[in-house]
């Protein structure tokens, strides 16, 4: 539990950092040491690229933040210098093998982002884009660098232009939504998220994100329906257990928590900007009962003790659990 908690903290610290990058880094490093990447054929090169990214991911956070470093002490952190050194080596290997590859260009750019000043990286990207204006990956990195530099308006402009051309980049839409969220532009964030939903309607986490953003945008009925939709998608109703006997966890638990919060909210039946009709009053109270019961089940399972009786206490207790 402790380690997962620490890892979750880590993940929250830098949203793009994947928890897997450490694993990738460690196993990849062995690959690099033995030089066996070349023998593995096509996939070997992929591995080297992944290793470079993972190492950058690790190196960055560890150099940048001592606190994260201390938190990650559980899993024997590699030396920070090695972490920054490895991508350099990977890059060299890849650049030797594929001299004109656009993918290596992107990787070089990301490597530069880690150490160079943003202006330098930006110039590098601009040069690449001038050469060939249709490179989506470079374009996106450019928007990202602009964002890091604090030029949010320019970043949004670039990112929207890119998404207007390359509509199918789900990650791009998510990043745009994220930028809007940091500026409290919830309606715009919802619109960006809706494109992500269109592009991958099978992913419940986008529904959850949409619901949470709708909540921030004060469109309570919309948020409620979206939370319920997330529940509907994620509760394991194909299993042998009846849904009412299952224990909500992970994304389902979070969605139930959202449902509960929204129903206790006095604005639950208020009007919505998207003209979503709220559930009937009888359904609302039934949902209230159901969500409380679900949350209690989850609490009992996670903590192994009986949940607090008062609803307010239950919500407070669960707040820490669903973070």
């Amino acid at each position, binding site marked *: 539990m402790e380690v997962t908690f620490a890892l979750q903290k880590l993940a929250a610290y830098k949203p793009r950092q994947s928890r897997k990058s450490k694993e990738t880094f460690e196993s990849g490093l062995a690959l690099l040491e033995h030089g066996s990447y070349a023998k593995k054929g096509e996939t070997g090169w992929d591995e080297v690229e992944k290793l470079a990214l993972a190492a950058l991911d690790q190196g960055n956070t560890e150099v940048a933040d001592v606190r994260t470093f201390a938190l990650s002490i559980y899993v024997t952190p590699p030396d920070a210098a090695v972490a920054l050194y490895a991508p350099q080596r990977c890059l060299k290997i890849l650049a030797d093998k594929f001299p004109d590859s656009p993918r290596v260009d992107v990787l070089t750019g990301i490597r530069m982002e880690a150490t160079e000043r943003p202006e330098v990286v930006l110039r590098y990207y601009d040069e690449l884009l001038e050469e*060939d204006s249709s490179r989506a990956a470079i374009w996106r990195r450019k928007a990202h660098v602009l964002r890091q530099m604090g030029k949010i308006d320019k970043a949004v402009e670039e990112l929207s232009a890119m998404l207007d051309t390359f509509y199918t980049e789900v990650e791009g839409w998510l990043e745009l939504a994220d930028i809007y969220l940091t500026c409290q532009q919830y309606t715009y964030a919802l619109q960006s998220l809706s494109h992500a939903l269109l592009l991958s309607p099978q992913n419940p986490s986008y529904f959850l994100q949409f619901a949470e953003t709708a909540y921030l945008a004060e469109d309570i009925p919309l948020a409620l329906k979206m939370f*319920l939709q997330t529940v509907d998608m994620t509760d394991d109703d194909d299993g042998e257990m009846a849904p009412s006997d299952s224990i909500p966890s992970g994304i389902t638990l979070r969605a139930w928590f959202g449902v509960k919060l929204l129903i206790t909210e006095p604005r639950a039946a208020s009007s919505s900007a*998207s003209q979503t009709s709220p559930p009937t009053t009888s359904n609302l109270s039934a949902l209230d009962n159901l969500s409380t019961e679900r949350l209690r089940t989850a609490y009992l399972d996670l903590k192994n003790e009986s949940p607090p009786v008062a609803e307010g206490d239950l919500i407070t207790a669960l707040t820490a659990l669903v973070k």
Partner: protein
Amino acid sequence: MVLTRSPPKKMPRKAIREQRALVRSQILRATSANSPLPPSYYKAISQYLSQAFADGTYLKDGPPKADAPASAPPNPLTDPGAMEGMMAGMKTQMVMMVPQMIIMGWINFFFQGFVLIKLPFPLTLGFKSMLQRGVETPDMDVRWVSSLSWYFLNFFGLNGLYRLILGGENAADSSRDMTTPFAAAAAAAPQPGQAQDYNKLFKAERDNLEFSEGLHTWVAQDVDKRILQKYGRIPADGK
């Protein structure tokens, strides 16, 4: 084949944008019957796209001017891009010809002067040059077929049989290689010869968008009821 293929042409941003705008509306339409988006959001996107198609926002050269004449499709011979596409086809053909010629020469060399079969039916003298190539005897009956002629007869004659037995797109079908370079170029993917008139495609897509908008159902429309039924809180309505 790999050697002769020219690298894929890089497209400028605007061209990609034009080309992919349709995909965008197709993605939207594909979800409409079970859409993840609530009606207002769906309508906003759908109407935005429809308006953009009507105004020609996504056209490569910007919105068409009102007073401009209905543009004729550009002449493929003046467009360097299209020309390149045609040349690529021709180049491939040229290279394909080389092994053909070598094989032909080889066969000519080895099988000259052999008589291979005797046809079971008589033929007029006119077929002599066709059936007895490589055997220069003026007196021989036309029913005797020389090996070289037999090779050519089979080479061209069996294609129909191959197609019948092996299906349309089989490797043994050499008639594909025998088509003219222009036909090959025209059959190549996006028809380099005639540029697509995206303006017309966009206009057509508007109708599709409108149609899908009518079909739109939000997947979460009755989700509260569905959840309550699933967890046995309200009775299922007879379904």
